């Protein structure tokens, strides 16, 4: 199926991209990257009169329809990983189907593009795994993450707004189900769906570090070895911002944060380039070495 990686998976989150592609291949899920994809816009246009910001996501959806027409992919479906891309593409897609007037305007502006019919389905990779079945994931595991205590961190846009998420906004299970299939011990924390501070990390670094610190504090108290994420912005705020937390909170101890696909690559015993933990901050390798996982 068509795969939309988005900008960050090609730069600061290459480890997310590499582990996704490798984990999919291991499960015989065929991901074909969109040709000439462009930025999704990162955030959905919430103002009612905003038309301009639909162009970027809709253009990507047109590419998916073209891929399908050309027979490159069998289904009119696009899979994403970044929670921001997922939300933006999905919401633009639904608006295209519901708001005829807006779509008319978009068509007029994008006269050089073929018309978008609205028939593409936008899914997150976790949903693809769920549909493949947790048993299939379990069967592929060669090195179960036995005894590894992992906190699944959903963040915002995988679950919200209500009706646009991949699972129930209040009581999600999908992330837990995957981690359990990998053999990990799943720990629950109250803040697993609380915001990490998101894009405020640009100009409100300390505040974001504080907000993310509260999430990590709960993970530490629960006794977690790892926090697993599904979004490059969550990963940055919970992971890289630990440099800031160490400065702000005396006695703060680093806790490794990894993408869930990296845990899949580990459990599937894939090659080192697929696990790519050398790009994570804090470095998870000492702990993984200690547990005999690398």
């Amino acid at each position, binding site marked *: 199926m068509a795969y939309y990686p988005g900008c960050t998976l090609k730069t600061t989150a290459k480890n997310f991209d590499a582990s996704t592609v490798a984990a999919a291949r291991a499960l015989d899920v065929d991901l074909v990257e969109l040709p000439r994809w462009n930025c999704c816009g990162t955030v959905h246009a919430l103002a009612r009169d905003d038309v301009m910001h639909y162009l970027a996501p809709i253009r990507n959806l047109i590419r998916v329809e073209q891929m399908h027409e050309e027979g490159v992919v069998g289904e009119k479906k696009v899979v994403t990983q970044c929670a921001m891309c997922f939300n933006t593409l999905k919401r633009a897609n639904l608006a295209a189907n519901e708001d005829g007037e807006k779509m008319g305007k978009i068509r007029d502006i994008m006269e050089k593009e073929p018309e978008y019919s609205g028939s593409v389905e936008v899914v997150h990779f976790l949903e693809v795994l769920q549909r493949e079945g947790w048993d299939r994931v379990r069967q592929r595991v060669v090195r179960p993450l036995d005894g590894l205590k992992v906190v699944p961190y959903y963040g915002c846009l995988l679950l919200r707004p209500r009706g646009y998420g991949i699972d129930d906004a209040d009581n999600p299970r999908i992330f837990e189900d995957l981690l359990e299939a990998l053999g990990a011990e799943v720990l629950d924390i109250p803040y697993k769906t*609380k915001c990490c*501070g998101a894009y405020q990390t640009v100009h409100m670094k300390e505040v974001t570090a504080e907000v993310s610190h509260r999430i990590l504090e709960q993970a530490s108290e629960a006794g977690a070895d790892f926090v697993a994420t599904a979004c490059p912005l969550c990963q940055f705020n919970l992971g890289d911002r630990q440099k800031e937390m160490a400065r702000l909170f005396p006695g703060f101890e680093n806790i490794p944060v990894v993408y869930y696909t990296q845990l899949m690559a580990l459990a599937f015993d894939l090659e080192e380039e697929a696990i790519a933990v050398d790009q994570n901050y804090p470095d998870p390798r000492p702990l993984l070495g200690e547990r005999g996982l690398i």
Partner: protein
Amino acid sequence: MSTGKSRLFYTFGPENASFKARVEELSGENIDLCFQCGACSSGCPLAQEMDLLPSKVIRYAQLGIEEVLDSKTIWVCSTCFNCEVRCPRGIDIANVMEALRQMVLRKKYDRVRLDKLTPEQLRELPQVAIISNQRKLSA
């Protein structure tokens, strides 16, 4: 902020009505549904950084008080939609915050300027952070 003053009497004038109508038009939300239960404010992860709690922002908007645009709150909101999920009246508060931000941004105001970010910040920050930040906080 001048909006913090308590007023014994309040007159809802034509200018208030037009401000309120503009907020509703831009957000697509019926803000009169709010009955000030405070669920949005209690669940907001960034409330401690705000000068007006989200529920108060809605109250100001209901009353059509334009000074709400001077509030720090609309720039602190990270659009995480926690309030949207919690609101028992079905208001998408994040949409209202967006409408208020847009009313300011459309006067060519930049809360965050890309050219003010240091080379170190540009190197360190993931694109998704910079682009979404610019989308939300610059004209």
